């Protein structure tokens, strides 16, 4: 699903985030029941409607939990932060965390979206995607 944009890196799932006007994630919203999912599914898991639309999530969420991964799969540079962030629309999203002091990060901190490398491709290029960082 990665879409190559230039020789330097690839973007993973460009359909799931946008950087304008402020970095945010793109979820799915059910037009029938109004509930959100991340990502957008084929049918709504709450009411089974298939009338779904892309919908931006709030740019800021709350850190529900996180870990610092020190042993991972090949292609991932350890250590890295990985966290779950709850958004006001009622979805919980997992992504890597960029922070100056990962060890000192507190649960329930306000987090925003940034874009950065998440792993290396087979030919050694950065694969970039959405990440979380504490609200500056």
């Amino acid at each position, binding site marked *: *699903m990665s879409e190559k944009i230039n020789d330097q890196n690839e973007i*993973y*799932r460009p359909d*799931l985030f946008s950087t304008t006007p402020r970095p945010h994630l793109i979820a799915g919203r059910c037009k029938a029941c109004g509930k959100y*999912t*991340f*990502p957008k599914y084929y049918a709504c*898991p*709450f009411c089974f409607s298939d009338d779904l639309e892309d919908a931006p999530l709030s740019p800021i969420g709350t850190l*529900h*939990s*996180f*870990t*610092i*991964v*020190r*042993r*991972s*799969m090949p292609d*991932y540079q350890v250590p*890295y932060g*990985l*966290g*779950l962030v*709850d*958004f006001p629309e*009622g*979805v*919980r*999203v*997992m*992504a*890597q965390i960029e922070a100056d002091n990962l060890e000192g990060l507190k*649960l329930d901190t306000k987090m925003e979206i940034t874009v950065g490398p*998440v*792993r290396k491709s087979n030919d050694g290029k950065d694969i970039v*995607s959405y990440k979380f960082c504490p609200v500056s």
Partner: protein
Amino acid sequence: MRDVYILGVGTTACGRFPDKPAHILGREAAWTAIKDAGIHPRKIEIAFCGHVYQGMGVGQRTLKEIGLVGQPVVNVEGACGSGTLSLWEAWRSISYGQYDIVLALGVENLSRILSGGPLPLEEDDIEVAMGMGMPALYAMRAKRYMEEYGVTAEQLAKVVVKSRKHAALNSIAQYRKETTIEEVLSSPMIADPLTRSQCCPVGDASAAAVLCSGELVDKLATKKPIKVLGCAAQSGKYSTPEKLICDPSENVARTSRMAYEMAGLGPEDMDVAEIHDAFSIAEMIVYEALGFCEKGAGVRLIEEERTSLGGDIVVNPGGGLLSRGHPIGATGLLQTAEIVWQLRGEVGARQVQDAKVGIIETMGGAQPAMDGITCVVSILGA
């Protein structure tokens, strides 16, 4: 629905066996279970084989080694719950009247595909692409649980100390050396706060059970038959932020409630349990989901040693996934074998006194958006 009994069980040892592919491990477990049941192999009408990574037709390739050819073989995959999903398939094929004598097999050789580190997951899952392994997901549960309930790293480590103490008495366990809180906490950090000793090892094994209908049990049984009092399999529901990541799994709670209802029993009636302790934190949370204690109180059962040998509800007397091992497709039937041995009174030093009823819980897979891929809960009675 008809009564279903387990006539016999068999297992290999758990460990790293890179020279023994799945069918070599599997034939030993299947043959041992058939011998334990005391039946002629030809009487088996259908076999189910739980596995995750063992390739095309692994059940057929395994059973060919012991002459079990011709009859249907169904390979079953439900992530880490594959072994008990195979047991559930065997149970329902008898319970609903289609067959009378059935083999449930589980097999996995992980050493041949993985030297160590986290289990390879589906890269098409967004979370996996973002760097989530199973240790990381459970680490996030542990982090939130510690924050919510003031649980310490030492308390988490006690789960492993208990596990190794039990496994020291189990000749098939992968890790049989007792350990200390200090050792557990000083092993390398995998995903904070989980150290390596708090994660189940990479390992290989096979286990099997022979089941039969109530109509045939008196005629066939050569050892004390163990009755399947309840057996339920479910999948995870969609999970939303209304629940904490460390809350007792709704999937485990729902599946166990179905098994309890079928058995006409409750958590207070269980004498012994084999549960899915893939990581230290999982054990405490599963206590809560199975109704052994209230939400947030799992840590107290560990502190008070109520789930250790000698306690009032002994959990994982065989060492659990943390110490006996977690050869994923085999795990559910390794758990089943332990409960059968316990209810027959065959396990010597790790015997739970007067064990009459035992429960088996297996949880397969996990995604942040879904509360587990497969959960299977069985209740067995002597």
